[in-house]
């Protein structure tokens, strides 16, 4: 008998990372404010790479300014460049807000961005300046998910203002979701007669229509006025599983302005969507609109119709931690069997979150934080999965294993419509369930010698 090879040899290097760097997440969050422009304090390459990466997914304009470090800047500090850069951005774009994220370079040389911004404001005293929001995003800490959350908090910190509570106004802090998800969430809150303030809201800006003239900054986004009103909302709904609660934007609104924060899982799947609707019933005092009861009914009916095609099918899930937890919950509900849940993030909460939302599968499932795609591949090959669920970077593995890849999350670089993938709510569960079930049927059809045309 041949001795089993070790599943995974440890590598010090990261091989095909299952994560991106912190500034990318910050740029995404900043682009959800109306008229805002992200600005990276570092080398030119950071903004160009991140732009290309995001444009390839969203297929929309994505301008990110840069302070364009040169050798002198790295030696003498980036103060001069950031001031000049901000002035040029204001002249070129006239933004409502500039979201300034640092990079590994500016953080390593110890640039005091706070002080630079203070000086910039002083230099331009009496002028109407855009809001300047700064977040520290050295790429040697955390992942793009961390950068996203920290930037959302920074926006709230600068823009939100206290005041008398505005009845019916509900803050929605959704986490890193698709434009389609953001649209769905705004709609559901509105359908309960509430007025949502969604932060950030890049649903139009990163999934917009055609233009009648070129726009320096694409239309859409949370308005500055709405972001300010967040401190006066009746409640905050904050979604997530693995984020740092103590430093979340919802927590900040609660401690600073006394806005109660309701923390929920990302509403992926029936149970999590039910929980969201229950919460909205509680906040609004209204019953669930009939529309949603109908959708839920059709969804569960479709689960029943197709349950035997998906039951026990083995799934490898990968991507941002919150997405992995949400998708795992959704899949466990229908009898799919996640056998490997993996992420490049290191929240130390992935396993406990999965146990909480999908206790029925958690014991039989490998859960790995801080892994790269090659480690995921090593594990996956041992686990004989039927299906991969995650972003398009999993295609290499899907091809190798000859199994379908259900594309969710970010980035989707090898298909169109990444921005339109709906993950949340009954509709998101319906769309993802249909695509999973149909991919499995297609595999059966392909693998069959008969080539049957009827299931």
């Amino acid at each position: 008998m041949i001795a089993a090879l070790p599943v995974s040899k440890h590598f010090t290097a990261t091989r095909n990372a299952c994560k991106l760097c912190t500034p990318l997440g910050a740029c995404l969050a900043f682009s959800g404010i109306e008229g805002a422009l992200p600005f990276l304090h570092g080398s030119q390459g950071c903004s160009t790479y991140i732009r290309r990466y995001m444009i390839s997914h969203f297929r929309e304009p994505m301008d990110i300014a840069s302070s364009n470090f040169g050798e002198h800047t790295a030696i003498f500090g980036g103060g001069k460049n950031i001031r000049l850069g901000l002035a040029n951005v204001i002249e070129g774009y006239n933004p409502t807000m500039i979201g300034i994220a640092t990079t590994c370079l500016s953080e390593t040389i110890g640039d005091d961005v706070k002080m630079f911004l203070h000086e910039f404001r002083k230099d331009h005293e009496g002028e109407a300046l855009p809001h300047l929001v700064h977040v520290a995003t050295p790429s040697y800490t955390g992942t793009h998910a961390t950068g996203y959350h920290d930037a959302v908090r920074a926006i709230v910190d600068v823009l939100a203002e206290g005041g008398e509570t505005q009845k019916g106004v509900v803050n929605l802090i959704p986490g890193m979701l698709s434009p389609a998800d953001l649209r769905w969430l705004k709609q559901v809150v509105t359908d309960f007669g509430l007025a949502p303030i969604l932060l950030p809201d890049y649903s139009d800006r990163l999934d917009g229509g055609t233009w009648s003239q070129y726009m320096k900054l694409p239309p859409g986004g949370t308005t500055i006025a709405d972001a300010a009103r967040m401190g006066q909302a009746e409640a905050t709904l904050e979604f997530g599983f693995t984020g740092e609660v103590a430093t979340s934007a919802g927590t900040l609104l609660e401690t600073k302005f006394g806005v109660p924060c309701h923390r929920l899982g990302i509403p992926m799947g029936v149970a999590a969507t039910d929980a969201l609707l229950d919460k909205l019933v509680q906040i609004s005092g209204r019953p669930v609109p009939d529309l949603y009861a109908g959708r839920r009914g059709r969804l569960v009916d479709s689960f029943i119709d197709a349950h035997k095609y998906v039951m026990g099918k083995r799934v490898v899930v990968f991507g941002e931690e919150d997405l992995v937890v949400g998708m795992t919950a959704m899949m466990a509900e229908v009898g799919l069997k996640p056998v490997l849940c993996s992420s490049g993030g290191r929240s130390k909460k992935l396993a406990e979150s999965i146990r909480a939302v999908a206790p029925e599968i958690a014991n039989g499932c490998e859960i790995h934080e801080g892994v790269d795609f090659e480690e995921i591949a090593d594990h996956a090959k041992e686990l004989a999965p039927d299906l991969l669920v995650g972003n398009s970077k999993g295609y290499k593995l899907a091809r190798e294993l000859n199994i379908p890849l259900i594309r969710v999350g970010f980035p989707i670089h090898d298909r169109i419509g990444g921005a339109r993938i709906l993950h949340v709510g009954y509709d998101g569960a319906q769309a993802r369930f249909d695509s999973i079930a149909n991919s499995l049927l297609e595999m059966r059809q392909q693998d069959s010698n008969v080539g049957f045309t009827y299931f």
Partner: protein
Amino acid sequence: MTTSDILEARKAHIHEKGAAPFNIACEKQSVAGSVSQRACVFCGSRVVLYPIADALHVIHGPIGCAAYTWDIRGAWSSGPQLHRMSFSTDLQEKDVIYGGEKKLYQALVELIEHYRPKAAFIYSTCIVGLIGDDVEAICRRISAETGVETIPVHSEGFKGSKKDGYSAACNALGQLVGTGDTTGISPLSINILGDFNIAGETWVIKDYYEKMGVEVVATITGDGRVDDIRRCHGAALNVVQCSGSMTQLATMMKEKYGIPIIRVSYFGIEDMSKALYDVAEYLNDKTVMQNTKNLVRDEVSKLIPQLRRYKQDLKGKRAAVYTGGAFKALSMIRSLRTLGMKTVIAGSQTGNKQDYARLQELSDEGTIILDDTNPLELAKFLEEKQADLLIGGVKERPIAYKLGLGFCDHNHERKIGLAGFEGMLNFAKEVHATVTSPVWKLAALRGRLHHSGDES
């Protein structure tokens, strides 16, 4: 403050042919706060070395630089696929504080043992110099211990522009050149420099040369192999495309080994034919010249009738070209002329004075020449000049689409070969597909600007 489409500091980088004496500013650091379409030093090195398929490419730094360059380019390999892996030391906060040398050393030992590469390139990113890592010393040690030549690439992002990255890459390649055995190399031989085998283009070009009876010693770096590069100093001639990235290496080989250089482009019928004739002429061999004549005649006579139907639809349409280097823009203008199209805007990220001078000579009156432009300027000129097509890379694509005009990807991410005679046909198809697509009729802006009643 008032807003403007063109920042004061950017004005010298823009020239309208005929409007003023030609004196464009170029080869400068991008203006802070302008959204340059350029990348950085690291990017320059990475694009040049990436296609060497049997080498290990390790990026020393935090994860971003490696993540954003993982298997994005269409630089294909006929054999090993090691270059498509993204290896990073993924530096963490403690590495930044205590230094990343140990991590780099350990990472390299494991990777070299596992993947057994022919050589290893170690790219330094922004913070490596700042935290004081002695990458050279680690590379020397690894080379000595593993026997795999491990070469540092000094590509810290902020140390200049993308062009300085090309230079760092050429220095790294220079370490390999001259270390292999040149026995048996034909006097009728060349190296192909500066073609990156995007969508298999190097194969097309190599095939032409071989049909001419010319031996191709090394392709640098498209479908590149370490051992070929080691012996490429045995070739009789260096044929350089993408001169921005490869002139330095070719010059080094000229000085050290006396290998002459010719500069070519493989885009468009004229430039492609000229490249083959120039090589044949240089090699001064009757058979090669006869083969070249036959090849060009066959290819061109096959191609011209096929282009006719595209030209019919494209005649008189207006194009904008924005490329990495300016030399390539020249070929684009000629190729567009072949299709009956007029270039109204031409620019590049990293062109030099000489290239821009040739570009403006070739251009029609009123053509806008742009150095290191940004989305605001591009959008402004595309609207003003009423372009029907933008040729560029992924970052430029949404500008075209939101303005309601066609787009052709001519950058390294593309998966369609545009070089050579067959590439010209692909180019015509690509341009035709986008310019004549019915979708524009549904889009608001295009409807307003161009198609108000002129459609049959």
